[in-house]
């Protein structure tokens, strides 16, 4: 049963729980609809920049689904990194591409005859996965996860935490080395 996200522990719960349950269901439906509709818009928009803007909405919807699964840290990172950073990267890539922004460049897939069986095959596999997979009915962790992650970062995983900053440092240096125009001929 793929969409029964919150039918867990329905018995032995009071009226209050049933209320939040329906509220959760309503918000899940709203978020899922927003995600799906904007994902469709991403691939159907004529202007690729508009596709990008709808991609932001899709990311936001995924963040909402993370929240509904009470993965609040993941939702925050989704907003920070995907909406904040990945979108900026794609936007810069679009703005730096020559002639991609021209209106006459078609966004339409012209080889849809090939694409259709491939995507249909993937769809069948995904549906089989959703239907046949024995979804674990364990309850989600009670309460926000950000604090738990913070505590373990500060105590148990302190060394990996500091190593992460070195990894990020390497990323900074690597990005500068790769992307900077070489001006070594210029003595100033």
């Amino acid at each position, binding site marked *: 049963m793929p969409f029964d996200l919150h039918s867990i522990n329905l018995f032995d719960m009071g009226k209050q729980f049933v209320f939040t349950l329906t509220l959760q269901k309503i918000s899940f439906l709203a978020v899922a609809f927003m995600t799906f509709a904007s994902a469709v818009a991403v691939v159907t928009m004529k202007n690729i920049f508009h596709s990008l803007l709808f991609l932001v909405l899709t990311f936001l919807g995924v963040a909402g689904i993370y929240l509904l699964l009470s993965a609040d840290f993941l939702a925050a990172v989704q907003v920070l990194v995907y909406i904040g950073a990945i979108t900026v990267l794609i936007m810069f890539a679009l703005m730096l591409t020559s002639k991609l922004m021209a209106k006459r460049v078609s966004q339409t897939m012209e080889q849809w005859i090939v694409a259709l069986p491939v995507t249909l095959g993937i769809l069948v596999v995904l549906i089989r996965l959703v239907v046949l997979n024995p979804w674990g009915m364990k309850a989600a962790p009670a309460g926000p996860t950000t604090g738990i992650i913070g505590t373990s970062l500060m105590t148990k995983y302190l060394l990996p935490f500091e190593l992460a900053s070195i990894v*990020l440092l390497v990323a900074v240096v690597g990005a500068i080395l790769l992307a900077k125009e070489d001006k070594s001929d210029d003595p100033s």
Partner: protein
Amino acid sequence: MQNNYAYIALFATIGVAFTVATMWVSWVVRPTHKRTGSKAEPYECGELPIGNAWRQFKAGYYIFALLFVVFDVEVAFIFPWARVLRDMKSAGLGLFAFFEMMVFIAILLVGLAYAWRKGVLKWD
């Protein structure tokens, strides 16, 4: 805990509704005649635009986006730390946690200093 998300939903709803209402009101109020001549320009009494705004930008700016991504990921690490700092303080580990984050930021500041030294931050 769930009620905090209700606030987020409330704010999102107000934000969307405000935007839609503003655009709807301006659509209702504005005059409907056709824009011709200087009325059709982006700046009615300003500079005449040269060419299209959808044009290629200088590729050197991509480095700013790359640097931004790195420091954005850094924020993702600061976030859970900021959440537990008060708890760590009440556990007697406040200074320890504080300096751990300072070390984390200092290592990344080396990267920023490197970028500065290499002249990446110059807007040319």
